[in-house]
């Protein structure tokens, strides 16, 4: 007779996570057993049901948690409290919206992913797969696995669960990043970078976990928190360990100096995935960071505040000034996301109740605008111009800023929605971004971190410059006509290696991989114009919901702030 006692599993509080992960596993089985022609529909339905189900599950848990403050389940490995539920709801919602952009094949009938991701770029095999219209429907289970990891990440109650969740969410993202249909070399390079740097920080974080375990003798948050309050001779161990764990989390949120991967990966990844990644990863990672800072390390705030302050200031400045000189839309949005990480960090550093509420609110607001903005980028394409002047095939995204000139005239509705997202990023009143910024900055001032709020306000005003510049470009600049696909000379001269061509029009960016299908197309058609492709409807719904969220939360933010504020209490 063994004396093994099965742990009691509280299925109820775990339901959001379980629904999503179960659906992901089923999704893998679907890949194996459902005929190829029907996979996309089945996978889509499964994913939507899973994410919708997670939302419903969160809603069902809400009233209980808002009454009793939540519970720790699985013996304390997972904490289901107010912030967890808010974050899980945000994640499920944003993932659902991002999914809608991901599934949209647009009127061209091609999704954002390589027909056969395993084939060598430019090979006959790839061309064959493209002609046959093969699709990699594995992206759906991958997306669900990543979402599942993200749902666990902010709820983790011990460092080991935290680490496992980190890997569960990261590995699918590495893979998804490398699956772009166009500019595949760029995409694969981004994937490789992301993976290497991710592995690097995972190692650092694991090292930090080991150090903290050495200090406290436990992985459990609550035990570590108690241990930090007692004096011992091993403070160095604890401090260095904490900084390493924070570094791991700061890498995920894209805070300086751990931000270097962000622009490259955002640019290389398939655009809908970039939207998903930029919104959801940030939500999950900030959730985990909040719990660590507020639950585990409050005893150390005096020692660690210098780290957080430095990182916050550096992040805001790097994100803002970096964005000023970018010429690629996806990189601009990448740097903008870095700057936003800095703004959100000011709310984290506030170290008060208002800070938690503000950060949770900001994450939703920022996520909605981000998914929407990348959804718009996904629809703005290059179209080749044939030698006789007629319009040719639709190519990849027109990401060079100059290609966006005059979009406001040719596609006023789309440009208007994009302008709305940019204004929200810039924090202009009556958009949700303003309410979010106001909330985090006022929380920071309340928490005594007014210098951070000041720098935050200054850098938001500087950041407004490049957002407004894009709006001016769209509405008040004549389109430059067709963009000459200037040669690889520029690309080749950059960095000498396979480095990213930073200042090259997007159509030239693929030239380093002269073997890719895109490069062939580009060479055949010497010039391109900018065009907007119609959606299948999914992306349009997602963008509309994002825009509506941005407007509604901009005009009337208080009810949501109150709703979040009512439950934003971490379980110790």
């Amino acid at each position, binding site marked *: 007779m063994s004396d093994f006692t099965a742990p009691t599993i509280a299925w109820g509080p775990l339901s959001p996570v379980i629904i999503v992960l179960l659906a992901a596993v089923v999704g893998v089985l679907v890949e194996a057993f459902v005929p190829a022609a029907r996979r996309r529909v089945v996978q889509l339905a499964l994913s939507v049901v899973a994410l919708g189900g997670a939302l419903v599950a969160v809603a069902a848990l809400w009233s209980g948690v808002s009454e009793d403050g939540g519970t720790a389940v699985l013996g304390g490995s997972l904490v289901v409290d107010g912030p967890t539920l808010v974050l899980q709801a945000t994640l499920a919602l944003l993932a659902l919206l991002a999914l809608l952009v991901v599934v949209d094949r647009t009127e061209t009938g091609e999704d954002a992913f390589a027909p056969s991701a395993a084939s060598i770029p430019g090979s006959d095999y790839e061309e064959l797969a493209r002609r046959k219209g093969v699709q990699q429907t594995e992206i759906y289970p991958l997306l669900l696995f990543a979402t599942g990891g993200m749902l666990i990440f902010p709820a983790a109650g011990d460092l080991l669960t935290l680490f496992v969740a980190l890997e569960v969410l990261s590995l699918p993202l590495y893979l998804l990043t490398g699956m772009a249909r166009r500019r595949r070399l760029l995409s694969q390079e981004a994937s490789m970078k992301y993976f290497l740097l991710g592995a*690097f*920080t995972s190692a650092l974080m694991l090292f930090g976990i080991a150090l903290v375990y050495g200090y406290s003798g436990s992985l459990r948050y609550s035990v570590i928190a108690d241990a930090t309050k007692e004096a011992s001779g091993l403070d160095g161990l604890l401090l260095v360990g904490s*900084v*390493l764990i924070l570094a791991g989390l700061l890498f995920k949120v894209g805070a300086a100096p751990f931000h270097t991967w962000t622009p490259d990966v955002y640019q290389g990844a398939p655009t809908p995935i970039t939207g998903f990644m930029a919104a959801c990863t940030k939500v999950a990672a900030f959730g985990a960071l909040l719990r660590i800072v507020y639950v585990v390390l409050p005893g150390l705030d005096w*020692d660690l505040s210098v780290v957080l302050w430095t990182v916050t200031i550096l992040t805001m400045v790097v994100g*803002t000034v970096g964005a000023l000189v970018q010429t690629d839309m996806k990189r601009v949005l990448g740097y903008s996301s870095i700057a936003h990480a800095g703004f959100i960090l000011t709310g984290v550093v506030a170290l008060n109740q208002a800070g938690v509420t503000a950060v949770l609110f900001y994450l939703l607001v920022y996520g909605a605008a981000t998914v929407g903005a990348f959804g718009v980028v996904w629809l703005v394409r290059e179209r080749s111009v044939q030698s006789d002047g007629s319009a040719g095939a639709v190519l990849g995204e027109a990401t060079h800023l100059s290609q966006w000139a005059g979009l406001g005239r040719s596609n006023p509705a789309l440009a208007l929605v994009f302008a709305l997202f940019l204004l929200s990023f810039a924090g202009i009143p009556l958009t949700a971004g303003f309410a979010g910024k106001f909330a985090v900055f006022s929380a920071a001032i309340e928490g005594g971190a007014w210098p951070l709020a000041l720098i935050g306000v200054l850098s938001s005003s500087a950041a407004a410059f490049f957002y407004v510049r894009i709006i001016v470009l769209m509405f008040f600049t004549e389109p430059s006509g067709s963009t000459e696909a200037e040669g690889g000379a520029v690309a080749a001269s950059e960095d000498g290696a*396979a480095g990213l061509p930073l200042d090259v029009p997007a159509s030239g960016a693929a030239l380093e991989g002269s073997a890719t299908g895109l490069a062939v197309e580009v060479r055949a058609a010497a010039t391109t114009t900018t065009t907007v492709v119609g959606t299948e409807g999914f992306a349009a719904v997602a963008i509309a919901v994002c825009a509506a969220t941005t407007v509604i939360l901009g005009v009337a933010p208080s009810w949501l702030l109150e709703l979040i504020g009512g439950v934003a209490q971490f379980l110790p």
Partner: protein
Amino acid sequence: MHTLTTLAASLPAATIGPAPEPVSGGIYLVAPALVGIPVLSAAILLLGGRRTDRWGHWLGVAASSLSFVFGAAVFVALLGRPADQRVLDLSVRSWIDAGAFQVDAGIRLDPLSLTFVLLVTFVGTLIHIYSVAYMEHDVDRRRFFAYLNLFVAAMLTLVLANSYLLLFVGWEGVGLASYLLIGFWNYRTDYAVAAKKAFVANRIGDLGLIIALGLMFANFGSVGFLDVLGERSGQVSEGVATAIGLMLLLAACGKSAQFPLQSWLGDAMAGPTPVSALIHAATMVTAGVYLIVRSAPIMNEAPTAQLVVVIVGAITLLFGAIVGCAKDDIKKALAASTMSQIGYMILAAGLGPVGYAFAIFHLVTHGFFKAGMFLGAGSVMHGMDDQVDMRRFGGLARYMKITWLTFMAGWLAILGIPPFSGFWSKDKIIEAAFVPVEGAEWRAWVFGTVTLVGAGITAFYMSRLFFMTFEGERRWSTKRDGSAQHPHEAPRLMTWPMIVLAVGSVGLGLYLALGGKFVEWLEPVTGTPLHEEPVLPEWLLITLTLGVVVVGTVIAYRRYAAATVPVVPPLGTALTRAARVDLYQDTVNDVALVEPGQALTRSLVFADRAVVDGAVTSIARSQIGLGEITRRVQTGFVRSYAATMLLGLVVLVVVVLATQS
């Protein structure tokens, strides 16, 4: 001055009306629709574009008429209530909820607001109908009606609001509508400039209202009528009340073209004539009077502010009258007369409880006869190829009989000849001005004499206008295309509104004055005017007034009907020359405000370029420089990225360990 305070304090019953009751149901619930209908119509007309060209003007007319019908329904319902229950508050929705600052968007239904609702919608509807014909050949007629509807909605918001903040929304709304309509033909640069001038002058006034709002919030913690004008109005110090009163006066001066902000009204005649009739004669320009009367409980606490109000009214009524004597442009002469008549109303409003009701009374009768005369002027212009120079008119009575007769009704009304409307209202104001004020006997004599003299000058310039236009010999020039003038009567759509307004000019004053009906109706708002004896007996005042009116009319008859009117204006006396250019008001403004302002602006622009822009540009440059560095760091090599991260991490660890407490 302190004696006045005691006077005001001894009359609490006269200052505070019954407390408003919340509305629970009934016909009163349609009140928001009064504003909503014209807004909806304006939105349809503006958003519908050319598609609505064919029927858009009728939609505008329908919206205005429907507002009138609803307004009349509410009026009848209110009339059915006992007099002390005629003040109602209808809360529409919570509007602003920001901590200590809470405002409900609500509607105040009481005799004062209903009087305005009826005036605005009734005269407004008539003018809408008139405009259908007047603007028939204008390609933008639909847009014109959209703006007119917008104006009606804004004006109704202004008078129905139950807080100063919502009133301010309407206040700005009418300013906007006025701006859009003055500059309706904005392809003419001088018209666009006129619109801008009106806009700027109004902004100065609005500043007063904004400051008043701030003062109210600081002292009452609220901007609602309930708090500011309720029992607490007596609890603030006299200084605060005076400050609020003066700021409200500044606002009134801007909107109602009172001295020293009156210069825009003459230029505002650039707008189409129906606009001049509705906005710049009958309704919008009287908003200042409404503001003062509505704020009666505050004004009663501030005798100094009241004195300033009276002085401003007195100056403006003489100013307008003098300017009116010299203008040859029929619309500008009427504008000067409007200014002068509003001067009467402001003066009456400044007299306190003895004058409030008569200010509103005169406002209503003036709304009818002045709108009627403006429409008459429009009809004359219609028949005379848009000629506005009265020296080019003459003898038109034979050619446009209806216009002549309706105009005559308005003319006799403004002169104050019994039993026409103006007599009943203006005579009461003159009487009130002669009521002695304890401890300041001079005031009854000074202000009384001003109103009396004003009546004489009014008689002169209005008769001059009437005789130059309709009597005497023909002095017509040719049309613009060189053909001969053929004056003709306007179409029926234009004459009927004129006839209706003429009926009002003839009988409305008598009807409302009989048995003190109107004054009694307003009592819940303005308080009971205690009957006080003027320094001269009533019969003598009436005789004197009629005497100066007759003198003024006779002089005008001899010079402009019996004698030949020169087509080229004679040089005239120094006073005439000054009056022709609005007594040099524009020059004074230019020298005193515009030029120093422009000099200041230029120096600020220079400083802005050199200092602020310089700083900003250099910051931007340094930022971009910093960005370049960031970009160079962003090499694209994973190894350098990892190195950056590691270096950053090491620095952080070192810092933490070094600063460890």
